[in-house]
């Protein structure tokens, strides 16, 4: 499984990972190598095997819908890189 430069560029975009050309090339080589090692899975017959998403057989976990205090606003905002008027400040979404 050899990845192309364009494929790697596309994955980086999907993951919103800014990457230099040099990084992309290194990812291309390493990911191709790793994906090749995954090909062993194609040897396994899984035609009638259901997938397992997690290993405890819990389903539909719900809790009582009760009001409880949340963390103080000031504590939540204390880690904000940028804030304004008590809100997280983000950059322009639309140009």
């Amino acid at each position, binding site marked *: 499984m050899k990845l192309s430069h364009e494929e790697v560029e596309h994955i980086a975009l999907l*993951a919103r990972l800014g*990457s230099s050309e040099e990084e992309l090339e290194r990812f291309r080589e390493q990911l191709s190598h790793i994906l090749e090692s995954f090909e062993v*899975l*194609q040897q396994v017959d899984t035609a009638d095997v259901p997938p*397992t998403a*997690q290993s*405890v057989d819990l389903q539909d976990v719900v809790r009582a819908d009760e009001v409880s205090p949340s963390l103080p606003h000031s504590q939540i905002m204390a880690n904000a890189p940028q804030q304004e008027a008590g809100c997280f400040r983000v950059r322009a979404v639309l140009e």
Partner: protein
Amino acid sequence: MGEPNLYQLTIHEAHQLLASRQLSSFELTEAVLARIPQVEPQLHAFVTTTHDLARNQAREADERIAGGDMSPLTGIPVVIKDNMCTKGIATTCSSRMLEGFVPPYDAAVIEKLNALGAVLVGKSNMDEFAMGSSTENSAFFITNNPWDISRVPGGSSGGSAVAVAAGETIYALGSDTGGSIRQPAGFCSVVGLKPTYGRVSRYGLVAFASSLDQIGPLTKDVTDCALVMNVISGHDPRDATSVSHPVPDYTRSLIPDLDGIRIGVPQEYFVAGMQPEVEAVMRSAIGKLVELGASVEWGVSLPSTPYALAVYYIIAPSEASANLARYDGVKYGFSAQDAEGMWDAMEKTRQHGFGPEVKRRIMLGTYALSAGYYDAYYLKAQRVRTLIRREFDQAFEQFDALVTPTSPTVPFGIGEKVDDPLQMYLSDVCTLPINIAGIPGLSLPAGFVDGLPVGMQILGRPFSEELLLRIGFAYEQATPWHERRPPL
């Protein structure tokens, strides 16, 4: 053997001295705090040390003890892997992305320890976001193995394992997604348990791969492991994957014989690439289990084991790529300032905030989940996961427990595998299948090869921690390995 230094005490030894007022928590804490600067220049186990907090907590613990309010963990120093949220104390995941992040709340396990009067001495170094097998992926510095500082301590909970082995704490907590407690426990000759998936609440554990992550203890012996499990286990409505299975008193299972215990040895764990000296140590350790009364059958087969590596390195990065999408530079953590517009800020934040292995796994996971590849990779891996789980279930119809090496080799050299991700991934080959199946696994000291530790891994069916601890305890009582301390 002379009188041990206070920092070398186990939890149960220290507790006895505290309970009989021969020792105060403050004295014990000072002994640990004095040990840290002696060995830290060689080891680098800590991202953060919390001296002042530790002294305050020790004084409070001494007041509680004086008032007769005491549990086995009261007044005992602990180190926490730096991916568990500690209110008011930086929690970095050894990543630039979370440098300076101060959690506004405690993880569930921290709440439980605090409620009993534990003493926090620091937060330990780890592979960035718990992705790695050597602690070399920390964005800050490399942690060295106390048995040979030119070698890795294992990972990702390397700092926690080193701190326990070197007497920089009495015990520690780690997290285990594919071996991150057991492999460093094996490499540092301490006891490490990955509990059954759902046994310990992960509320406040920074998420890596949500269907695999578990928190567990790293301790100096099996009794301590049981004592910590008594406290951290149990249902928590804030972690929807935690299970309402009753929590026993794990210390009651610590009996020193193995009469009637049926143990299987899966042949796939004695793989090509395994060091012959490690195999020899394992054979001798398994012989000891027979002497203790267990029946052992060699050559048990779990035929899907060779596929576990690929299954793991599809599922874990896929889940990680989703979990790590939250790091956008807006709400907390690192935020690139030299950017134009939202997307550019996000891409630059993630480019400069994440290290190479984290990026590699995000890329891998994003690819495995992307349109056109989902069925071939992620879904396929989940189906093979079912087979791996079934084979364990079948083996446990015949056997009470399975025994394997924790790692195929002794600790490897620093730098030896950093340039070859696939070789690094292979060092977890004996521990990954356990997370895939969600079963518990205990690693404990099984001997040494030229002064380097070898770990033995004991596996059981879901919620069989008591039996694993019993086997570990019986073995430990009959062997001297857990009493050896690294030459520092």
